């Protein structure tokens, strides 16, 4: 059986290519039908903010690529509750259907996956 991989995305979408490069790992793995999960943690939750206007800082919109995750078979999407609260993001306004997890659920999540990559 294929090993499962959790990708932890910790950077805001405006903070260089990290957010996109974490997403690219997920999309590439999805193309191979691998069992993947993606967790948005720390500033990574800013990727889920609604109504972003990346053109104002000459950036492409990452949201459209994030929407492609379920189409690539990456349906296990999570966000850290603590990270959302600290950044003033309400779970019911997020741009992507994610499961919001508390700290205990986060450790269980990380333990459940065979491998973890953090970007």
């Amino acid at each position, binding site marked *: 059986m*294929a*090993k499962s*991989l959790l990708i932890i995305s910790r950077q805001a979408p405006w903070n260089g*290519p*990290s957010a996109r*490069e974490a997403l*690219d*790992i997920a999309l*590439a*793995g999805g*193309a*191979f039908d*691998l069992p993947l999960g993606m967790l948005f943690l720390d500033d990574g939750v800013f990727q889920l903010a609604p109504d972003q206007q990346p053109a104002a800082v000459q950036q492409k919109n990452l949201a459209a690529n994030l929407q492609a995750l379920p189409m690539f078979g990456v349906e296990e999407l999570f966000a850290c509750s603590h990270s959302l609260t600290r950044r003033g993001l309400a779970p019911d306004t997020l741009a992507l259907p994610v499961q919001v997890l508390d700290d205990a659920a986060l450790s269980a999540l990380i333990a459940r996956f065979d*491998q973890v*990559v*953090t*970007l």
Partner: protein
Amino acid sequence: MKFAIAVFSPAHAPSSRRALRYAEAVLAGGHEIARLFFYQDGVHSASTNVVAPQDEVDVAAQWRAFIDSNQLDAVVCIAAALRRGVLDEAEANRYQRPAVNLPKPWELSGLGQLHEAAQVADRLVCFGGD
């Protein structure tokens, strides 16, 4: 045990040096390295254009020597490398750039190589940050 090692930091970052020391220890311990994968700023760890001061450790050169002498599979993510100006001869020609800084033993390839390495290895170990 079989290891896949991913490096996300440039040659001047302590974590690139730690990754190299870790990889050396893996082989010294009688284990196997399925693949080294260089992603994000880790592609700079593969650049032959890094010039370390004479009294400092040249980590990029050490990576090259380590990979050469152990004939390891060392893949540099092509998308991450192009964005950061790390080019082999084919890519330098394709995009008409004057410099080639990624000769053998490095291979430019895609993220599928990271996933494949993670699947065949018993452990995936990543080195990033400082």
